[in-house]
């Protein structure tokens, strides 16, 4: 058996154990114990939802505030941003080498032409800051519109 299939098996094992430990090892065990020892005796009063000692007034699944959706939409904006940043951060260090080739970059370092090198190195940061500026404009707009107020 090769290494990659062992590793795949291991991660599968981790996921399976993650679900099996609470499901089988704990909840099922507790169920079996309470059925076997006979202390599972539900009744209407005991099963009532708890509302500080009062009898529950209406449906529990009430309509909730629209603000939660607002935050969720804003969150998606930033979450996607982070997903775009990750490939950028893995690629940014190789931009000078991709543009002029590794030999030319080494030659620039060897001859001490740091200003030339910095011009190439700045391409990645400038790209990502343009991307972030667009996002920040979005955040500022939401802020000004009052989407971040929880009144």
């Amino acid at each position, binding site marked *: 058996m090769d290494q990659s299939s062992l590793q795949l098996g291991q991660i599968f094992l981790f996921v399976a*154990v993650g679900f099996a430990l609470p499901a089988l090892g704990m909840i099922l065990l507790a169920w079996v114990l309470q059925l076997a020892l006979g202390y599972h005796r539900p009744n209407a009063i005991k099963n009532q939802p708890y509302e500080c000692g009062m009898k529950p007034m209406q449906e529990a699944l009430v309509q909730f505030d629209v603000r939660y959706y607002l935050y969720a939409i804003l969150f998606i904006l930033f979450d996607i941003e982070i997903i775009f940043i990750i490939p950028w951060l893995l690629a940014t260090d190789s931009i000078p080498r991709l543009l002029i080739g590794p030999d030319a970059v080494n030659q620039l370092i060897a001859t001490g032409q740091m200003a030339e090198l910095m011009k190439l190195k700045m391409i990645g940061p400038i790209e990502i*800051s343009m991307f972030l500026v667009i996002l920040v404009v979005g955040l500022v707009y939401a802020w000004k519109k009052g989407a971040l107020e929880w009144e």
Partner: protein
Amino acid sequence: MFSNGDEIFKISRLTIVWLAGIFTIVWMVCWALGIALPMLLTQQLGDKAALTNEILRAATPVIAILVFIPINAMFMVLIERRALALWTVRKGPNRVGPDGNFQTAADAVKLLLKEDITPTGADAVMHTFAPILFFAPSVFGAVPLLAAVTNNHPLFRVLNLPTGIFFVLAAGALPVVALVMAGWASNNKYSLVGGLRSAAQAISYEIPLVLSLITVCLMAGTLDLVKITEQQAGGILNWNLLGGGALTGLNNALAGGGAKALATSYFMGPISYVCAGLLVISLIISFWLYLTGACAEINRIPFDLPEAESELVSGYNTEYSGMKFAIFFLAEFTNLFIVSSITTVMFLGGGDNPIPPYILNNIPGIPQMVAAIRDSYFCSTLHIINPETFFATLWVIAKVYGLVIFAVLIRGTLPRFRIDQLMAFGWKRLIPLSLIVFIIVVFAREFVICHG
């Protein structure tokens, strides 16, 4: 400072006894399954045992985690209660066993034997599945961390994912679903509000949290947690907490490289020194942002709005009793442990000794001690102790539990936020701050050669 000095001694004793107990048990299980049994099988069967051995070694970390999680949570609950009692000048649990040492073990038995109540009108399937889904990510989310905190022990096959921290974060986003599920399925208004609050809070604080980790990944140039740990080796100046490798040049200079090492790392002269200073400040802010975001992600005080007992009874777990409640509890403490491990690996150098090797190796006695351990029978024949990873593991344990106790200290000293303050703090303060730090790091790192 403390009015009950005796308590400090008792807490230290309790911590040492429990930690020694936990890690001896876990290590004995690992050793028996992953080292002793394969050695025995190879002796008896020869080459035929190769496949079995591989499978045993791959299964060892999983079994170790199974053993570790319950006893670790017991210890963490106990230390939290004792430490809170110390800081609020009360008596902690002190009845069950010597000094209350077995209090949480007794609690676990009690929770296992409690009746399991499903309230009227609740969605029984969702109600049962929510704690399972809450718990599962804390097991498989920790997979890449495991490779980093065990320092690549040569005798185990611990999975190392190249996506590392990304996988941890993806798994860390799952419990939110479980909390909303628990709140929705309970047929209780308090639970519903608690679940929704936890969702709103978790998604708000996830952005600064992820951005601060991304900043560290940017400094490291990789997402692989093992590589990030390896880069930070060599003393406190190399840790990501202090500039993410911006001080590596200084470290090399102190190690004997002199002015030449400084000139290599800080190749632009004064601009580079300024940028290195900016990086140090930025990464310390990042560390603080991560701690704040992590506190909010795992619903700890001061961000425990979802289970604010003064307003929402107990939030999303109001209707849970017995073992299902215990699983929520267990997963919460496991998450605290995982968050501390991420902090240790990403910022505090993993298993790295804060004293750099060029000082450490000059202290008389230390190289001889390591050599003596390496040559001993336990180490060379039985492989009970591996000198490459033994001290590193001790450092990991010290750092992780230090952060856990720091989280307890926060809980003991800070009041709870109000929900509008919480959202305003997250969106109007932390997110802009994390974006600014990110931009500073993006530009400043180009002027310094880091981790070189």
